[in-house]
């Protein structure tokens, strides 16, 4: 375990139970709530800050504003009935839930999905990654006052949602990756329209580069800010771009390839400095990589054959007793489903492991100490947090 490196000599002493000895009436300290409604919060979550001047001496993450108890709800639903609700665990990148859930029950039931379905799933996951990263870029720049970037990225995200709509029949919650495969094949003319969208996305990414990453203000506010010591990564379960921004080339797509990833060519994006800028840049390059991967998928994927495995009657589907864990690399890091079955028609237990859970709880609470109030939003966003997956 890495020791707390910050100099805490000027900050309040700790009580015997580890809590801070803060006397709010002294006038030295102030409690400040950032969120749940705050432009610098990526969703319904709040951070309870104790500040001294404009420096944070302690921060506590509060979640629960949209707790729906998905994991518990699934225990009351048949395996097919869980399918429509899992995507709702994570609004901006719902497809990982669909994939992980489907893959987990398929593995436990011994179902092998058709080849074309694997490619379509991969396509959807990359489209979802791109969209999620667009939201991130808008949020990260917005947290530093650059509102216009969010407008541009929302625009291309919307174009990608159009592609989602024509492929899956829905824009946000796609409900397309069923246990056994996917619902349908690509629609007529999809490739051409996707190419148009990708070109528009590339143009926008150039603008984002020029106006955000090449912006003195943005650089000033992010380079060297929000540093995470890579030695902490394992302590805090840091994965994905957050780890890759600190030089650790963790990527499930490469480390434990799934779906069509073994057939795709890509480099794992890394940056060295482990600050907000590094993480943002890794994500920017991830978005460009998604564009490339989507092109590769459309070029390589088979267009014939079934997209659903032969399945038993979904109304009575029972899965033998067992447990498994399925992970994938989502836009924010390792996303996984731990599923336990007991031979009945219902999951015994489903546990969703989202990267926000580790990033925005223990890690954030640690990083936030010594932070400037003005930097809290940028730091929080740089961990790419989606609160619903924390509380599930």
């Amino acid at each position, binding site marked *: 375990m890495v020791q707390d490196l910050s100099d805490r000599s000027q900050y309040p002493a700790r009580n015997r139970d580890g809590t801070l000895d803060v006397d709010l009436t002294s006038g030295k300290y102030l409690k400040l709530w950032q969120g749940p409604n705050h432009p610098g919060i990526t969703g319904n979550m709040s951070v309870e800050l104790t500040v001294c001047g404009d420096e944070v001496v302690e921060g506590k993450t509060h979640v629960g504003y949209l707790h729906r108890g998905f994991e518990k709800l699934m225990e009351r639903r*048949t395996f097919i*009935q869980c399918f*429509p609700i899992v995507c709702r665990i994570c609004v901006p990148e719902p497809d990982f839930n669909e994939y992980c859930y489907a893959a987990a029950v398929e593995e436990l039931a011994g179902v092998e999905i058709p080849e074309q379905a694997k490619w379509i799933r991969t396509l959807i996951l990359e489209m979802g990654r791109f969209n999620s990263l667009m939201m991130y870029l808008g949020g990260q720049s917005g947290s530093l006052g650059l509102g216009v970037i969010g407008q541009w990225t929302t625009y291309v995200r919307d174009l990608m949602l159009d592609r989602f*709509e024509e*492929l899956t029949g829905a824009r946000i919650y796609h*409900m397309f990756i069923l246990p056994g495969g996917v619902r349908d094949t690509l*629609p007529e003319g999809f490739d051409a329209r996707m190419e148009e969208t990708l070109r528009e996305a590339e143009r926008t990414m150039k603008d984002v580069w020029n*106006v955000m990453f090449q*912006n003195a203000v943005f650089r000033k506010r992010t380079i060297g800010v929000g540093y995470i010591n890579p030695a902490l990564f394992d302590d805090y379960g840091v994965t994905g771009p957050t780890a890759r921004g600190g030089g650790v080339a963790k990527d499930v797509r490469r480390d434990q390839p799934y779906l069509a990833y073994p057939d795709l060519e890509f480099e794992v994006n890394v940056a060295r400095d482990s600050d907000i800028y590094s993480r943002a840049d890794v994500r920017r390059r991830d978005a460009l990589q998604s564009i490339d991967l989507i092109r590769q998928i459309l070029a390589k994927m088979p267009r014939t054959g079934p997209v659903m495995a032969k399945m038993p*009657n979904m109304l009575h589907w029972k899965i033998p007793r067992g447990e498994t864990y399925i992970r994938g690399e989502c836009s924010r890091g390792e996303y996984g489903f731990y599923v336990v079955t007991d031979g009945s028609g219902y999951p015994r237990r489903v546990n969703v492991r989202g990267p926000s859970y580790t990033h925005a709880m223990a890690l954030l609470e640690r990083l936030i100490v010594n932070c400037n109030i003005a930097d809290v939003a940028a730091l929080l966003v740089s961990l790419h947090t989606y609160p619903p997956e924390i509380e599930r």
Partner: protein
Amino acid sequence: MPITTVLSPFRAWKFLFQNPVTVRDPLTERPGAPRYRGFHQNDAEKCVGCGTCETICQNGAIDMIDVGLAPKDGDSGLRPRIDYGRCCWCALCVDVCMTGSLSMSNAYTWTDANADAFRFTPGVDKKPWDNDQLGYRRPEGHALHGKDRVEMAELEPEARIGTFDEIVAGYDVARARLEADRCVECGLCVATCPAHMAIPQYIKAVRDGDYERGLALLYETNPFSQVCGRVCTHKCETACAAGHEGDPIAIRWLKRHITDQVPHKDYVRIVGKPKKAAKGEAKTIAVVGAGPAGLTAAYDLARQGHKVVVYEVRKHPGGMPRYGIPEYRLPYDILDADIDVIRAMGVEIKCETRVGSDITMDELKAKNDAVILAIGLHLGRSTRIPGSDHADVRKAVDLLRQVTDEDPVDVPKSLVVIGGGNVAMDIARTMARLQMKAYGEVAVTVTALEDKAHFLADPDEIRECGEEGIDIVDARGPQEVVIDADGRVEGLRTWRVQSIFDAQGRFAPSYDESDERIHPGDMVIEAIGQAAGVDMLGEGLTEALEWNRGRIQVDADGRTSESWLWAIGDCVKGPDVVHAVADGHRAAKSILAAFEGKGDEA
């Protein structure tokens, strides 16, 4: 900081000169994608109200409501109402829809100040998008349940034609579970089944492998479960929701599977012992005819602790299932096993006792608290065409009886059957087997008034006839049995039937007299229809009873105009095993009610 990072952001100024990318709604209409999952559409004509959409909806957004449609075979009359306060547009309801009636339009914009407007019954409550062509349709080949029936092993035609061995092998456990798995438990079949058997429940028992529960469920409603598991007319399967977009569930074979899985010795234990009637409460009931109707009534009454004696004119009990249905469809030991269970309930069966001569109806009336008439349809009808009184013109029912009782039958080298029903198929196939045994070849011609599309026989029977080398000539109207100079039957002269039914579907044959054929045969077998032998009632009772178009008039429970007499089964309802079983239950219920003074004094 390099100076470029100060200048670079100014490139955003270029957007000043660009057109906005936003859609000006509602000035610019933006339709949903062709696959978009918008508001539901339902073809209310096609929908059968099976409620499978409701079952799969994890949001509880669907209610099956009464929209004023009368329930009918295979259609509950209910239709799904969707609460859009709950719907999550996952479209599992569309994916699982058994008829394909449910779909989703690509309409997604709709505002209304009244929240209750967002709860409606698609296809019944008219909406602007009802006829939209675009929107989510279940992709071809995508299904959440199995569409194809699990194959049943059966004897190949070459192997079966020389013997009376049972043709159908029955499902093994693995196959039965696969087939049972296809059932969606909608229960539409239950109303159509005359005995209202607990079909979804016993199919579930097959899925669960709980055969004892399955058997108990069967015997609650049908003491001829083994028989019905083989030869039931399975109207339930025509009502099956799975039949709309695939094969109906093999309900009959699953029933048989349950009976096959439980050892016969365990039947009585599972079915349970009859009640003991309270002292002095036990009544005596006479049943005339030991077929399914009479024995079912006897079974029900005996289970309530009453004393039941069944009078049967033939050597063995069983009625038509024994004497009408050939052994290759229903082995005698299966029938005996069902009857053994009935006997185990204390029912006494007196065979070779002819009511009307050995004992009269008046005597039965005097000795018993109630009498049930279940005499079936055992008199074969004749066409009465010229030559039909020849000794080698036989009636199918008589010949089938002879075969069953192992009375000697003169097997002709070739023969012609008149009739297109199951009895015609039964006698044709029976005689074919006898011919095979005697001469090593089959020469049977079946002629029927109906064309093949309107045959009364089961399609399976017709197919199997063909497989067994029987020649079926449809749409032939018999005109004369041709007799040669030596007085021997030579064949059957027929005219082609141009049409047999008029536009209203009523019988109105018209012949093409120019298309005349003679079907050669040493014997002609008439298998056109049957009648009940009601002479045994005696003149007095015949006069006393009310009649309805040639049949004894009965109320819904089978009670005749004589308060002590019930008449049930084929003789009042027409031929069908499971209808007879249902009749037996109704009569028993009615008699029990009468005993308790709920009905009229018996």
